[in-house]
């Protein structure tokens, strides 16, 4: 019996020493400000913040603690300060409403900034009217989840990016909503990361801006109505699955703009109502399959600098121009797609058209050579030219054709 009590007390004692404390912050609590609570805490503690408005200039989190907001307490930056700086590993920040950061292009002020940390979790926050939203620099294995970021900048100079990641690795950006920023999600030198189920809309420049970030995946995101769509540049090994690229409409807007991309995979995406669905420049070894291109100005624009790309099993429906290109050299394959403008026949009924389809119209070639010819857009003349070119191809690239066009649209 004595022995049992001894062990039990021993266990309780161990538990008491190692147990993380819960520190409460609020009007009726011991601590009135979050900064005081952080100073009093040790690694592993949790700080529970009750509802209230906290104006604490910059809150420095330099211990591995968990910060939880109850009923979304407001952290106000008074249009002057960065609001939260995370400078320790294993920090969790959850359930805050973070508002009104300062604006400075010199310091890149953010609502939440992660400085070279590992395993930080930022989830379920509402971030309003801030310069940068969530800023991660040189961080590893962080999770940014279910945050809602809204900015109200008027010009590109006056506003920062929603989720800005720089030189990081293994990030998980999941289920966030970003709007009104300069770029919704910005990746530069970020590797092995995943962007999943985010909604990025009405941002001033790009919904997603992606540079020098190898071996990342973005899956099931919605990029809608952004100033210039999505841009992926100078990168290899990017996987893009099941995303929606919608209504990126304007003089220089693209569903995706791919520049100097290689060894990537674009599958299951929907490109709806964009000026250009995909614009490729210097892209190579990309497989584009099972995508839906619908009601775009140009479904795809492939510059002659692209090679070894495979475009297969896609649906092209209701686009003004299916494919545009700027040269006669074609080193990409366009076989086995469905084109709604295909006028051929299928005698043996194997669902594959017996004559090749040429997705590049004469008029789109003319426009590419001489943009001023766009003056004749939708005139009777250009329709006639296109019809005659279909019968006797002369100017359109000889090799740019689908040798096995599908007769029926794929179920995508």
């Amino acid at each position, binding site marked *: 019996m004595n022995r049992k009590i001894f062990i039990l007390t021993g266990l309780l004692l161990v538990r008491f020493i190692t147990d993380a404390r819960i520190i409460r912050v609020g009007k009726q609590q011991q601590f009135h400000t979050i900064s005081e609570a952080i100073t009093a805490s040790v690694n592993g503690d949790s700080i529970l913040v009750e509802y209230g408005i906290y104006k604490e200039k910059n809150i420095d989190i330099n211990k591995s603690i968990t910060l939880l907001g109850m009923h979304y307490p407001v952290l106000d930056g008074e249009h002057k300060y960065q609001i939260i700086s995370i400078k320790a590993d294993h920090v969790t920040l959850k359930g805050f409403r973070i508002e009104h950061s300062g604006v400075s292009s010199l310091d890149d002020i953010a609502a939440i900034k992660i400085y070279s940390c590992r395993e930080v979790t930022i989830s379920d926050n509402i971030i309003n009217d801030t310069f940068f939203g969530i800023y991660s620099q040189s961080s590893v294995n962080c999770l940014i989840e279910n945050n809602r970021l809204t900015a109200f900048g008027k010009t590109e100079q006056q506003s920062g990016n929603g989720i800005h990641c720089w030189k990081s690795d293994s990030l998980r950006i999941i289920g966030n909503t970003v709007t009104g920023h300069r770029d919704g999600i910005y990746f530069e030198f970020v590797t092995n990361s995943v962007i999943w189920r985010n909604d990025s809309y009405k941002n001033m420049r790009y919904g997603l801006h992606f540079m020098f970030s190898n071996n990342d995946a973005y899956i099931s995101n919605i990029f809608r109505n952004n100033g210039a769509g999505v841009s992926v540049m100078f990168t290899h090994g990017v996987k893009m699955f099941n995303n929606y690229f919608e209504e990126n409409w304007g*003089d220089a807007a693209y569903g995706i703009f791919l520049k100097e991309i290689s060894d990537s995979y674009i599958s299951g995406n929907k490109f709806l109502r964009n000026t250009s669905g995909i614009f490729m420049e210097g892209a190579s070894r990309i497989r584009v399959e099972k995508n839906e291109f619908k009601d775009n*100005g140009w479904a795809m624009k492939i510059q002659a600098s692209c090679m070894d790309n495979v475009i297969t099993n896609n649906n092209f429906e209701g686009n003004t121009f299916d494919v545009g290109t700027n040269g006669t050299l074609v080193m990409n394959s366009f076989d086995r797609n469905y084109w709604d403008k295909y006028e051929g026949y299928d005698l043996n009924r194997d669902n594959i058209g017996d004559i090749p389809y040429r997705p590049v119209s004469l008029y789109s070639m003319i*426009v590419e050579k*001489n943009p*001023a010819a*766009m003056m*004749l857009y*939708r*005139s*009777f003349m250009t329709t006639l030219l296109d019809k005659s070119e279909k019968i006797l191809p002369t100017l359109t690239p000889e090799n740019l054709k689908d040798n096995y066009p599908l007769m029926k649209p794929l179920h995508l």
Partner: protein
Amino acid sequence: MKKITKYVLTDILRNKIIIGYTIFLLLISLSLFNLEDSASKGLLSLLNIILIIVPLVSVIFSTIYIYNSAEFIELLVSQPLRRKQLWSSLFIGLAGSLALSFLIGIGIPVIIYAATDTGYILILMGTLLTVIFVAIAMFAAVFTRDKAKGIGLSIFLWLYFSLLFDGLVLFVLFQFQDYPLEKFMIIASAFNPIDLSRIMVLLKMDTSALMGYTGAVFRDFFGTNTGFIIAIAILTGWVVSVFWLSLRKFNRKDM
């Protein structure tokens, strides 16, 4: 003059071809709006009709009408009437009735299905095109006594404005592509009412984004209120100048 205009108007409005034309336009626009999944797409398809069929019908119908009423014109010329009044009332009668059938055939469906800026500008441009091509037809008809030649000339003029002119523009654009052509494009569009009205409608549509920098050039010029007024002035100028030319010819014509 009022009397003659009234006579011409009632005569044309009872004409089976005009009634058929109205019903044809009405059917086409209603079916286009019902077939396309959005009103703006319907407008886009309607634009093609307006740019090709409306001028064609206006020009051919007017030419034939003028030739068919040659005896009527001769009779009235022998009366104490000024030729200017006679020719003007013929023009007003023709333009008025064709414009009316255009407004019924296309205007009403557009107002029902797509009462937007684009829709209104489409109606405006279509009406102006109708009137311009009536003037062109009268110009062609006054030139020669031979009906076949006259109809041939009016069809040629229609072909020129809807097709050949664009071919020439394309030719020039390629021949001089090393030179800045922005001003040339704007001036060229003023020389063809079909091109000008097409550009005016397209600029109001979403698809204008496809026109890239060329679209921007036109938007800078015609997209403003002043530009809009200039465009309308140019199109009205077409009506007035072509009609004036035909009137001058008619005044001196030996019947």
